[in-house]
């Protein structure tokens, strides 16, 4: 059967929703950083060790890598189709008045998130998997110290906060857009998804934004 852009959109929707689900788990794990330092160190390092050892988590992590790559690659394919479909440009263009900025600029927001992910993977994921980390009292790799020390730098905080804002706007449109692509059309449930999408996006964005600020202001004083 011939492939259509709608099939590509389905890939975008399914991978996007999986990444949305992952963000919840990721945020819940990170919230452990907000505990008092002595407890937080042991718990966070134990949790990181738990995730790296479990076979089920390993499978999910491969799905995660694949989702990020597929989401980005199909976004590029679809953007190319779009640019071709536009034809010539309007001389005087006020079309922006009838739709939200973030819904029109998912590609830019996604690019910011992707750049952030490269830095984020390099600084934590790569260091944890392939770097040499000191061990904590329980014998787990001390990722906690790395996190705390990296969030002492002001520019690093700004980088993270800006990326989370981009993520928030991306989610705000992405979550609802995925539901539409998957075929949700009943007005009642469309409204439920809209409201849930807002609540979800706000919680995720402010949840992630809180952690670097908390660490910066609590450990820098």
């Amino acid at each position, binding site marked *: *059967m*011939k492939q*259509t*852009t*709608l*099939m*590509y*959109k*389905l890939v975008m929707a399914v991978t996007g929703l999986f990444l949305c689900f992952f963000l919840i788990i990721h945020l819940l794990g990170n919230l452990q950083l907000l505990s008092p330092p002595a407890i937080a160190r042991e718990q966070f390092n134990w949790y990181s060790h738990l995730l790296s050892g479990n076979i089920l988590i390993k499978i999910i992590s491969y799905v995660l890598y694949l989702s990020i790559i597929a989401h980005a690659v199909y976004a590029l394919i*679809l953007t190319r*189709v*779009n640019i*071709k*479909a*536009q*034809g*010539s*440009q*309007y*001389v*005087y*263009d*006020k*079309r922006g*008045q*009838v*739709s*939200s900025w973030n*819904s*029109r600029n*998912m590609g830019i927001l996604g690019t910011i998130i992707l750049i952030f992910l490269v830095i984020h993977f390099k600084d934590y994921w790569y260091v944890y998997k392939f770097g040499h980390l000191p061990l904590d009292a329980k014998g787990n790799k001390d990722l906690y110290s790395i996190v705390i020390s990296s969030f002492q730098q002001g520019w690093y905080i700004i980088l993270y906060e800006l990326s989370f804002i981009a993520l928030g706007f991306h989610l705000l*449109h992405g979550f*609802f*857009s995925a539901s*539409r*692509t*998957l*075929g*949700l*059309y*009943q*007005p009642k449930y*469309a409204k439920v998804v809209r409201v849930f999408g807002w609540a979800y996006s706000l919680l995720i964005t402010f949840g992630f934004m809180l952690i670097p600020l908390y660490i910066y202001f609590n450990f820098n004083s």
Partner: protein
Amino acid sequence: MKLYLKVWRQENRESKGDMVSYVVEGISEHMSFLEMLDLLNERLIQKGERVIEFDHDCREGICGACGMMINGRAHGPLSGTTTCQLHMRSFKDGETVYIEPFRAAAFPVLRDLKIDRSGFDHIIQSGGYISASTGQAPESNSIPIAHETTEAAFDAAACIGCGACVATCKNSSAALFTSAKISHLVLLPQGKLEAADRVIKMVSQMDAEGFGHCSNTEACEVECPQEISVLHIGRMNYQYNKALILKK
């Protein structure tokens, strides 16, 4: 009223167009936008210049022939209206008004403000019909349909195919147009039988015509003269996904 117009002038499909300035005096605020262009065209004829070509037919908002970008918006600044339903009282004296054709790769400019919308026809031809002969109109109670269902189908069928949805879409997607036709037919008993085949053919044809995909900015619903709901796009996607899963 006196208006300063900047109008897109293009000789034919192949040539490169440009914005040309005109000053139009003596405009009545009661004129429709098309009547204002008629006035300008009459003066161009008197001066021996080529008139500005644009599509129009019924001039009462039900045929879908007229359509242009006015000040960067499809069918101008009002919502729920076609270009012919826009009146000059919506503009200020001495204002500069930009007039361009609807633009999309699938809508090539034929001349000036006139575009080729046969891409829409090809989408309908690919499956936007019921292939069984329905014969004479049957006794009205022999096919039971709930009132809400007929109303919903009619809301979708109200699409006049003007192309504003494509013109305003950042992706030049024809999703609203196509989904309106799919919704209209799938809601009715006669249309349900070929639903799966229809949606696959029509969605594929959208791509083949060179329209982009839908990224749910929902700009189309705002600019649609008939205020066709974007939820029809959701229903089209639902029908498409169902057809993909159930297809043998």
